[in-house]
């Protein structure tokens, strides 16, 4: 019984992982890494569209996070908010260094059509996806971040508010403006959405 209780105390959970990582527990680092690496990678990939650069920036996010985790202050928002903020800043640096930017065909890397689609329909879908991403990448960084967190990561407005440091109301308003701006961008590139 005592052994089970001790094991329970030693078990790393989502709640205690950050505190333990701040104290230097390598298992907690490992837990945090495995818990967040795919989401952070996915977010970065959608923002920049290159697999190699997404891997590079993901590595930097975790090196920076673990290098500075001792300075992390729990302000009552999810730990992921801190990681997304690091990613957001590194992506901004990457965009500033715009000479390195190379677009990679996205249909090779994204989970696009399901296997049940007809070939013509699958092709239509991947072209539509490319157009959507071209439109999204024309938006301001805040609007891009919001759309990716909402549709790719499936976060609620309240969670997005925590991550972006804004109120839920501000997120709703930003979301509406982002959709209108995206509609304008899509119109510029000749995209027609089915009604």
């Amino acid at each position, binding site marked *: 019984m005592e052994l089970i209780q001790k094991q329970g105390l030693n078990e790393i959970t989502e709640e205690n992982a950050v505190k333990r990582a701040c104290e230097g527990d390598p298992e907690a*680092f*490992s837990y945090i*890494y495995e818990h967040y690496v795919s989401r952070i990678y996915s977010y970065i990939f959608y923002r920049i569209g290159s697999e190699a650069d997404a*891997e590079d920036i993901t590595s930097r996010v975790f090196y920076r996070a673990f290098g500075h985790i001792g300075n992390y202050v729990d302000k009552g928002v999810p730990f992921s908010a801190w990681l997304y903020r690091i990613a957001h800043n590194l992506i901004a640096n990457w965009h500033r260094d715009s000479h390195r930017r190379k677009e990679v065909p996205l249909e090779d890397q994204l*989970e*696009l059509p399901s296997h049940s689609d007809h070939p013509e329909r699958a092709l239509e879908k991947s072209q539509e996806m490319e157009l*959507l991403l071209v439109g999204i990448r024309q938006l301001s960084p805040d609007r891009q971040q919001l*759309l990716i967190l909402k549709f790719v990561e499936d976060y609620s407005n309240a969670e997005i508010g925590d991550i972006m440091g804004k109120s839920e109301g501000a997120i709703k308003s930003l979301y509406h403006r982002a959709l209108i701006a995206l509609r304008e961008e899509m119109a510029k590139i000749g995209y027609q959405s089915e009604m």
Partner: protein
Amino acid sequence: MANEMDEYTYLNSLEKRLSESLRPVRPDPSFIHSLKERLSQNSNVMLEKPASNNGLIMLGIGLFAGALILLLLSRKKSG
């Protein structure tokens, strides 16, 4: 009124397209594994370094300050 309806319908349609098209992208498993290895090696170095260095520096400063005080006191007495 009709324009507002059009805009509402268009935005709903765009929202539907976004939720159907955007899916999470998984990184290459070999990338996940190799980054984990690199991070764990790096965190071991980071954790070990500061404790031993800080201790030695503090000991050195303490010994130097002690010796300096003794030297000053002995000079004052003899002078």
